[in-house]
């Protein structure tokens, strides 16, 4: 029992961190823009394949190329596709659905539809914490994720741009009134989001495998954490991701793995209905 509790706590925190860095970009751009960018999880998948394809040539330096590369890709995506229509959430939603499906078809053309496990870990041993065996690489992922989240939180509270991102109400017009260049801020958030997506893809894909379909579940996770935490709030993401991570592992460990998705989704739906602003976020919609 004790061992199980330890297991739930540790694994929950690790997954929370991975889910968290996957969600940051999504939640912040959506909070800033008041729209949903469904293409982001597709870029998560693209990032994972970039890592798989480049690592034979770049080895341990892969992430140094892929992370900024994916960041730039996301910025380009924003400038090309989102910016022209960012005032219309429905257009963004529809355009990004089509884009995400197109990206999946394109990737499926070039890559097998199976799973690939070719992301080499930095660390390969196991650690034993209170009788729970954990892979070092996974612990590293969890740690990196939490450092990134706390770092981002620090930046967002202590720099002008950060404060702007957090402080901007959803209304883009509102922020223009107070003299901020919204396009620049959104582009920066897309860039940061892209870098974190790459980081998430490295650990998540390395642990669970990479496939062209690996954006569907992340999309659900992004939606759920954004919902539970509240749109565009880093504190919200941190709270929600821990909640989701723990709940997920706890349901699997203590109750019935088959209702994992149902429990988490029900939580998200209930929060949306009864507390639409999420646990720590701004009111949405």
């Amino acid at each position, binding site marked *: 029992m004790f061992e199980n509790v330890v*297991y739930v706590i540790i*694994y929950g925190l690790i*997954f929370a961190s991975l889910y968290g860095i996957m969600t940051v970009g999504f939640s912040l751009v959506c909070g800033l823009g008041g729209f949903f960018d469904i293409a982001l999880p597709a870029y998560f998948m693209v990032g994972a394949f970039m890592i798989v394809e480049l690592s034979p040539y770049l080895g341990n330096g892969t992430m140094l190329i892929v992370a900024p590369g994916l960041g730039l890709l996301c910025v380009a995506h924003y400038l090309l596709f989102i910016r022209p229509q960012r005032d219309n959430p429905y257009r963004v939603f529809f355009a990004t659905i089509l884009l*995400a*499906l197109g990206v*999946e*078809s394109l990737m*499926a053309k070039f890559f*097998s*539809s*199976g*799973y*690939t*496990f*070719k992301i080499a870990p930095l660390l390969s041993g*196991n650690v034993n914490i209170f009788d729970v065996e954990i*892979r070092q690489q996974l612990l590293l992922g969890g740690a990196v994720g939490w450092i990134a989240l706390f770092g981002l939180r620090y930046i967002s509270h202590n720099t002008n741009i950060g404060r702007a991102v957090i402080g901007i109400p959803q209304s883009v017009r509102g922020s223009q009134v107070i003299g901020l260049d919204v396009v620049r801020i959104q582009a920066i958030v897309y860039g940061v989001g892209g870098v974190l997506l790459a980081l998430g893809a490295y650990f998540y894909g390395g*642990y*669970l*495998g990479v*496939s062209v*379909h690996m*954006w*569907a*579940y992340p*999309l*659900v996770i992004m939606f759920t954490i954004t919902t539970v935490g509240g749109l565009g709030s880093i504190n919200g993401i941190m709270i929600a991701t821990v909640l989701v991570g723990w709940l997920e*592992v706890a349901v*699997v*460990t203590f109750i019935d*793995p*088959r209702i*994992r*998705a149902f429990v988490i989704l029900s939580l998200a739906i209930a929060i949306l209905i009864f507390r639409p602003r999420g646990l720590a976020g701004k009111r949405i919609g």
Partner: protein
Amino acid sequence: MRSGEKKPDLDSDLSKRLLGGRPLSRRQFLKTAGVAGAAIGLGTGVGGLLAGCGDGGSSGTTGASGDVIKIGIMGPMADPTGMNVLRPAEMMIKKINAAGGIIGKQIEIVGPIDDHWETAQAITAYETLLKEGVHVILSGSDDNVESALLSRIGQNPDVLYLSMFASTQGHMVNVRDDYEKFKGYFMFTAIDDGLYYCVEEPAIMLKEKFGWNKAYMIREDMVWTEGIEQYFKDSAPQKGFEIVGIDVVPLDVEDLTPYFRNAEKAGAQMIWTMISVFGEKLANQAWDSKVPIAMFGHNGILNDYGYWERSNGAWGPMATTSTWGSLEKHSPEWRDFLTEWFTTYSDDPRTPMWLGECTWRGIKAYQEAVERAGTIETDAVIKELEMTYYPDAPVAGGFYGPGEGIWPHTWAMPIDEAERAKADPTRGEGLWMSSTLNPMTQWQPKEIAPADSFVLPGTPDDYGRLVTIWPPALAGGEYQLPPFFPESPNA
């Protein structure tokens, strides 16, 4: 079945299910589109709409005249599954035509028509094939699609429908209940009880070799594994196994390590897996996590060589039912087929998967039935197909004949044997032995793999070798403990 005293229980249970007209089980392996559960391959279905075309009338005709035999092909063609129908058909039919065809008639392939694993597309695909006047349809889609096609199959009993993939006995029950309507429906694929015994048999072998008897089952949350869990509970204890746990894993599972952990904590010495959809994940995560428990089972997807390459041979503790016996011990015909495939195609699927062999068998069976009947007239061909018998077949296809009871007879068993089995339940034992020959293969580092293990010509052989470990007739080597195993796991 395998043991006289418990058979009645199982029978009554089964008969309740089957006579109730309820599908017993289902296998939907390799639905790579992701997961039939939650956020399943958003994309796969979407384009699904892009339907092909359909047929004008509801009652198809066979277009039974002329000098060609038309064989229609449908399935998810963007997927290894569809390719496992198309490629064997193309390879074999080229040969058959070159040799003068079947009873002097050339064979023409119609299609392939993509169904995208999707019901609406499957219907248009099926009706398009009917419109083209095909005599036979080879279909490689899952139970889901087959569920949708059933009512149309029943409308067109004159067109033979050979199912290469969907294996739910419940579908076949339709044949028994309304033979005239469904007589053209054949399931040229393994049936569920066979899948159970092809895991139990090697388990017995390992028990004798290592003394393991604590068995743990991980099954995916699908209908077909429900029935298998029941077999497990009924049969394994009688074979001297102690069931230490069963995990039912949702289809949208991402992380399988909790289940490995459960098994470890339960003191399992072997994990039996019944997985189709997420077999790749299972094997890789087991390898990645260095799970020190022998693991084997039905993981259809893992048979493809492309997978082994992609995963850097992440095979370790896994052994899996496959269509590959050790090459040297296989029939020359099948060996040639494998070799030809491997040297012809460089993209996925690099080698035939399980349903690839089903298609191979299916076409052979059709060819032989037509030759025996001397005509392509449907009823005569059906009569001959029902007599199909391959004692060496690794995979058991199944079909009901007129008036048959609970058990379908299979192509691994002559029809008169099935008749006798009905009369004398105790005969069931031998009967089912012969239908459960799916070999177990294991990946082993080439340094320790035996010389006659499965190495295809042209294989770079970087990742090791496939070794058939069961059944004895095909075995090329013995089960090897993965390097990270403790000397004597939990024993």
